[in-house]
C-alpha cells in the first residue's frame, strides 16, 4: 500500500494522537516540512508536483498532507537521524529537489508538542539554502564525492595523520556504545590496515546504531551492530575516512593516503548525511528509515 495524501484535519488529529502515544509510551516521531523555493502560485504547483513523487519514497505508516504551500509529513517511530536520512533521500531522488526546501524536527530531541515541532521544522526549512557543500556534491557518486571533497577549496586541507583518523573512528564507535546516545550511524575505513585496532573499542553489547566498517573481503569478526563492507582493495588503500551521523552531532574526516597525505574534516550534518547515504547507495546497504 502506498501512502496517500490525507486531509489537513485528519493529519492534525493523527499528529496529535501520535505525539500523545510517543509521550505515553516513550516512542519516537518526527515531522518533515517541505516548501517550494519560489513563492506564490508557482509554489503551490511545485509542491503538488513534488508531493506525488514524494509519496513513493515514504513508508506505509507515514502520513502526509498538503496545507497551503507546505507539504507536511509525519514519520512515526522515527528519530532525527531517520528524518535527516529521509530528507537526504528526497533531495537525491526527487526531480524537483532543487526547487524544494526541507526542514525536519523530531519529538523529544527538538520539541514535545505539535506547534513546537512545526515551528522548528518550518525554521529549518527556511534556513535550508541547498547551496552548501552537500548541495554541490549531491549529484555525484560516493567515490567521486570523496575526490571532490579532497580537491574542494571550501574545506581547508590539513596534514591529518592516520592516527588521528583511527582515534576519530574509535570515538565514533564509543559514541555509539554509550547508553544515552540517540541512534547514530558510523562508517569507518582506515586504509585497510588498522581495523583490528579500531575494533578493540567495540563493546560486546549492541550499539545504539549501525557501524559500517570497510573490510577487504567483507568478513570481519561478527558483531550484531556491525556490517562489514567489502570495499575494493585499491580504494581501501587510497582513503582513510570516518563519517559519523547522529541526532546530536555529525562529523566527517577524510584523508588521502596518497602522496599529499592531506585531509579534510567538518562537523557538518548535511555533509555527513550525504556521505553516509551515498556510501550505502554505493554498496547496496539500504536500510529502512526509522
Amino acid at each position, binding site marked *: 500500500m502506498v501512502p496517500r495524501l490525507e486531509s489537513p484535519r485528519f493529519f492534525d488529529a493523527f499528529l496529535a494522537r501520535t505525539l500523545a502515544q510517543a509521550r505515553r509510551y516513550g516512542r519516537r516521531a518526527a515531522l518533515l516540512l517541505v516548501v517550494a523555493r519560489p513563492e506564490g502560485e508557482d509554489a503551490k504547483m511545485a509542491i503538488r508536483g513534488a508531493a506525488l513523487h514524494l509519496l513513493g519514497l515514504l513508508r506505509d505508516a507515514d502520513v502526509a498532507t498538503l496545507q497551503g504551500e507546505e507539504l507536511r509529513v509525519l514519520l512515526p517511530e522515527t528519530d532525527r537521524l531517520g528524518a535527516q536520512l529521509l530528507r537526504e533521500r528526497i533531495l537525491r531522488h526527487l526531480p524537483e529537489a532543487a526547487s524544494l526546501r526541507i526542514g525536519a524536527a523530531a519529538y*523529544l*530531541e527538538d520539541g514535545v508538542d505539535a506547534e513546537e515541532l512545526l515551528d522548528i521544522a518550518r525554521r529549518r526549512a527556511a534556513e535550508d539554502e541547498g547551496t552548501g557543500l552537500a548541495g554541490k556534491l549531491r549529484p555525484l557518486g560516493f567515490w567521486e564525492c570523496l575526490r571532490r571533497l579532497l580537491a574542494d577549496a571550501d574545506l581547508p586541507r590539513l596534514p591529518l595523520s592516520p592516527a588521528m583518523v583511527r582515534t576519530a573512528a574509535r570515538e565514533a564507535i564509543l559514541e555509539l*556504545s*554509550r547508553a544515552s546516545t540517540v541512534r547514530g550511524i558510523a562508517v569507518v575505513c582506515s586504509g585497510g590496515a588498522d581495523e583490528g585496532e579500531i575494533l578493540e573499542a567495540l563493546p560486546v553489547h549492541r550499539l545504539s546504531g549501525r557501524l559500517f566498517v570497510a573490510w577487504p573481503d567483507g568478513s570481519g569478526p561478527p558483531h550484531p551492530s556491525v556490517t562489514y563492507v567489502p570495499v575494493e582493495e585499491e580504494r581501501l588503500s587510497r582513503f582513510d575516512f570516518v563519517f559519523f551521523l547522529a541526532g546530536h*552531532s*555529525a*562529523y566527517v574526516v577524510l584523508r588521502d593516503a596518497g602522496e599529499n597525505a592531506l585531509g579534510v574534516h567538518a562537523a557538518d550534518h548535511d555533509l555527513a548525511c550525504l556521505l553516509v547515504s551515498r556510501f550505502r547507495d554505493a554498496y547496496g546497504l539500504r536500510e529502512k528509515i526509522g
Partner: protein
Amino acid sequence: MTEQVPTLLVALTPAEAGVAAYLRERGFRVLVAAHGAEALDMAVAQAPDLVLFDEECGVLDVESFFRIVRANARLSRMPVLTVGRDPKRASLTKPLRPDRVVLAVEAALARAERAAGRGEELTRGVLGPLSIVDLLQPIRVARGSGKLVLHTPVGEGTIWLSEGEIVDARLGRYWGKKALFRLLACSEGSFELYPAGKPPSRRIYEPFDFLVLEAARQKDELAEQLHQLPARARFTAAVDPRNVPARPSLSWLLDKLWGEALTVREIVDALHLPDLEVVTTLLWAYRIGWVQLVPGQGDSGEELVTPELRRVLLRRLGRNAQRGQALAKIAVLGDEPERVRRALGALARCPQVQLRARAQWGTVATLDLGEGAILDLVALPGGEELAPLARFLLGGAVGILRVEPAEGWGWIASASSAPAVELDLVDAATGLRALLGRLADVPAER
C-alpha cells in the same frame, strides 16, 4: 590585676590609728584590721599591695604573720612594713610620723613594682575578649619591653618585645616568624603578660605594625591556599632536589619530600618557615610538577556521589543501559593542553576514575560511580584547525569540565546547553562532585 589605687592593709594599735585616715587622705585605699589575726585574714582574702603591721597590734605576733604570709604563694612577695619600737627590727619606729609613713609606703610600693618589672607577672587572663595584639599594644605604645606567655590550643608560646618592637617568638619547637604568625592567629587560650623578660635572641626584625598586618594577611591567605590542597593526600618530590635551582624554601621542601610522602599538615609542621610560605611553595611546586601526589591517595576516603545522586543519574541517563556500558560522557576542555593533561592527572587520583588511553583527546578516562553508573570523560582538542573534531566530541556531552584558561571555547555556549563546572588542577574531585550534583538537576534528556 593591680589596681591603679594601691590597697594598704594596716594593723596598728589604737594610738596610731590616725595614720589610716592620713593614708586615705593621700589617696590610698586603706583596709583596717583590729589585730594581727584579722590582718592575716584580710591579707589572705584581699591580697593588698602592702601591709603596715604593728608589732603590738595583738593576737598574732609579727614573726607568725610573716611566716604564714610568706608561705602563701600569692602573698609571698607582698611588701610588709613593720612598726615597732626597735629601729633595728622594725621598718618604722614609733611614734609614727604620718608623712614618713607615706614616704616609706610609696618607696616600698615602688620597690615592689620594680621587682615585678624584673620578671614578675603583671597581668593574666583569657584570650577572647582581648586579642593577642590588644595585649601587645600597650607595650608597643609605651615603647616598653616584656614578654607575653600564651597557653593556646596549638601549644605553649611566648612573644618577646623590646623597646616596643616584637623581637622574637617561640611556639613549641618553632622560633621566630613561624611561631609568631601561628600565635597571632590564635584567638583562644589564656595568657600571662610580663613587663620584662629578655628574649633568648633576636630572630624578628620587621616593624610591629607590619608584623600585625602580615599575620592577618597570612591567616586569610593560608586558609584559602589550604582549601586548594587535598588535606588527606600525601605528597612526594617528583624531582631530585639536587637538580633543582637553589631557592631555599623550595629546596627544603623537596629535601623533605625526597623519598618521603607527607600530608600538607605534616609538610607545614616539618619546615621551619612561615606556614604560608610552605604552602605557597608546595602549591607552586605541585603545579609545575616538581611535587606529586602519591597515587591512590587523594580523596580516596570520600565518595563522589551519594547513593541517592547515583540513583538519579542512573534514572536520567541510563534508562536502557546494559551491563558495563557508559551512560553518557562529560567533556573536558581548556586552552592549554598541559593544564588539561594535569587536570586529567588530578582526576585520575580519584579512585573512581580510570585513565583509558594515553591519547591527548577523545575518551581518555572512565568514571565508575558504582552500581552501573559509568561516565566517560572526553577531552576536546584545542585549536581552530581541530574545531570540527571538538564539536563532534562535544555533541551529546551531558556535562562540561572547564580547565581555565578556556578563552578559546566561547562557541561552547551556543553549541551545548550542558552544565559546565570549572575544574581545579589540584582538587579535581570537588569540581567533578559539583558537576555530578548539577547533572541531577538537569531536566531529563531530550
